[in-house]
């Protein structure tokens, strides 16, 4: 997955967080974002965003990382 592709996915996650998490505490927010990714993202996109956890300077926010880590634990991919 290219840097551009990673950047696009990170941008999408951050955008989801901005819209989906207001009014929720961090646990609920991470669960909600994870559920969204699980429900709507394709397998390769999930794999790529999980791979971003291991990379530096991807631009994933703290909450984004937490959400993606949660996605990783689902282990369905």
């Amino acid at each position, binding site marked *: 997955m*290219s840097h551009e592709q990673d950047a696009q996915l990170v941008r999408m996650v951050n955008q989801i967080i901005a819209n989906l998490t207001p009014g929720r505490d961090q646990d609920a927010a991470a669960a909600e974002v994870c559920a969204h990714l699980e429900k*709507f993202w394709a397998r390769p996109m999930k794999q790529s965003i999980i791979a971003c956890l291991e990379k530096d300077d991807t631009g994933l926010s703290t909450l984004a990382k937490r959400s993606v880590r949660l996605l990783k634990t689902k282990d369905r991919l």
Partner: protein
Amino acid sequence: MIQHFDPSQHAKDLGTPAPDADATPVSVEIDGVEITVPEGTSVLRAAALADINIPKLCATDSLEAFGSCRLCAVQVEGKRGTPAACTTPVAEGMRVTTQNDRLARLRRNVMELYISDHPLDCLTCPANGDCELQDMAGTVGLREVRYGFEGENHLAAEQDHSNPYFSFDPSKCIVCSRCVRACEEVQGTFALTIDGRGFDSKVAAGQDEAFMDSECVSCGACVQACPTSTLMEKSVIDAGQPEHSVITTCAYCGVGCSFEAQMKGDQLVRMVPYKGGDANHGHSCVKGRFAFGYATHPDRITTPMIREAIDQPWREVGWEEAIAFAAERLQAIQAEHGRESIGGITSSRCTNEETYLVQKLIRAAFGNNNTDTCARVCHSPTGYGLKTTLGESAGTQTFDSVMQADAIIVIGANPTDAHPVFGSLMRRRLRQGASLIVADPRRIDLLKTPHLADAQHLPLRPGTNVALVNALAHVVVTEGLEDHDFIAARCDTQAYRAWRDFIAEERHSPEASEAITGVTAEAVRRAARTYATVGNGAIYYGLGVTEHSQGSTMVMGIANLALATGNIGREGVGVNPLRGQNNVQGSCDMGSFPHELPGYQHVADAEARARFEAAWGVALDDEPGLRIPNMFDAAIEGSFKALYVQGEDIAQSDPNTQHVEAALKSLQCLIVQDIFLNETAKYAHVLLPGSSFLEKDGTFTNAERRINRVRKVMAPLAGKADWEVTVDLARALGYPMEYGHPSEIMDEIARLTPSFAGVSYAKLEAHGSLQWPCNAEHPDGTPTLHENDFPIGRGRFAITEYVATEERANRRFPLLMTTGRILSQYNVGAQTRRTNNQVWHDEDLLEIHPSDAELRGIQDSDWLGISSRAGQTVLRARLSERMQPGVVYTTFHHPGSGANVITTDNSDWATNCPEYKVTAVQVEKVSQPSAWQRRFEEFDRVQRGHLPEVVQREATP
């Protein structure tokens, strides 16, 4: 086999409209026959219902009674004179005589006067065989015209052939005013009038102008209403009267009008709006009524073609070779690059059955969920937003429901242009006194509705929808305008409380939002009060809501507003997405999205998936597939290698054209199935001829969830309907599908999709149409959703935080561009550009406010270079005050315009629906086409040159 449908049960003209069906019954005696009808019924209609056919000319049941022709005169016992049956309502105990010597003499005298000023050319008249004047002359027994034909007359009146589709011959006019009344009552345009008085009275368009120079929108209502050949389709003048007809469904917008395709053998003579159509009730627009010539245009692709690479000429081959070529390539790519390296796009222009088959092909034969549809780029946020809040991915009402609405909010929609027949119905309700609130950056034509009672325009800045809807909801909550009973009985309490706390915050007040939206607080407060307090509040919205980075949030904001005010679950209210293409609702219903099986059943739902696996005989992937923009990204990145596109033109319709072009060029195999060499097909390796809606059986589902039959009226030009091609491709891929007729596909859909469980072709024949859900619980369908509960139990308020789009105006790109549609063209224009609709709009223009134009020294018709972060194109300027300063507007109906070269790949956070409605641009005067346009012209020339010579020759005008 061509299927015929007998329209006779609906075809009879009963003379005047039906009153309310639940009006008090009234019994009358007409010619000795006792008849009971609802109060308010005219004598003319009551008689017709008993098959007592009183002669008439100025009366027709699509128009209010007028009482001008005097032909329907009757006698009523105990009353003096001979009142007109059309304007005389029935009364209890009334005894009416419709035939006696006195009435016969009177009618003959009336007809004699008409005929004394009428050309006696019946045998060569285009209406011969379909003329009410001729019929009535026969009915009343006219045998002589004592006045002669030498007196003053109108026989030399000048004809008007300016409209491309119909002619106006005033010498044949009887001044019954049916055309004028149709333009007013049915269409709501008021383009026609009766000019002059007495003998000088004549029908005039506009200020006595040619039809083309007037405000006429060419809907055909006047032509339909004319009882003579005064207003007559040119196609009938050329071809003569049709000899049979078939009821089918229009293939243009999401209104889904029913039409009689009137035929001569396999030649389509005219499309006549079908009075029995539940979506349109006999009305039409210029597209459905007249713009059908594309179906037999010489540009039609009728032979399959293949090529190894897109720089090579096409090679015409037989169906078998083309399908084998496509299948071999798909299999080879999957063998080398993996199961997920290919995918497909279903068509929102094709039938439900065809769409179902394409997604089945992808899921079952490709073995992945890489299926998507053009709803991705239009109403995918509707699916997400309404499912989240109300539990169902669809609009809640029938179109007719608007006639019960007291306050109508229209957000980001332009119904008079994009959904014209529904726009006319809405205008009718507005003339009756309903309040109108339009939230739109542009001053749309709906605001110019004649006799509009009360209109409010909220001219918000592009991209600020959510801030506006939050401000509206804030007023509802803080001014105590909520429907607490509804909320308590129907909504999730916890979600409501959280939402209420959120929306009541001062930062959502109209005063705080004013700086964001540009709409005055006073206007927002007034609009919210109107919606919440006048009675039934109905919200209609379009792509101006969905095609934003917060499209899904805005849909939920709209649902919040409806829930908070209790405007859900009955006639006259609701949340109503105006869907774009003819079958975009159906394509979503049929499982086109990568995460949902038919009926919006998630692929991870083990129980649902098991049913499909059992029926289809294969294991299905439980992970969602790629959406269209994800496919493009993956193609460029190199992991996605092949795409099957049925009946969509992603190269023209999707945003950031240069990105799309790069993606399409990256593919090793692009299979396009279409009726034309569209822009996408120029990048294809396999071109499979598509079939038009006239060439196949099936169903379309319109914006009100109405499933309507599409009926074959002619054989497919290329020999196969689209569904047959998909079946062939599946078989070649080793996954045989066995269907003898589309009805069998619908039977399978019904078995697997709970909301379609009760749908069958037999039931559609019996009912005419059905609105889903149609199942054991709702055997006759469901006109209004959520009457008693929601599919998710209780309505769920959603937190709708306003997040400004990243696409912002700045010094480099100081203007915001928004895109839209116009009446005469449809979507990418592939159909309408191949009709005479071109006379209204033969190029896309950039509308710009005069103050922005003046700043840049721009005058009307100047060539303008429009630049954005994505690209540049060149269009001509149209100065218009419909736009607010700082905002420019264009359409995307012509491929060379490159409107989507400018739009960016910003998209909705939940669904990736592109943000077509907000692009920051700069505009300047230029003298030549953009670099992209020059490349486009050259690529287009080369690709047309790759077509076989015979195809090129036929396509030459």
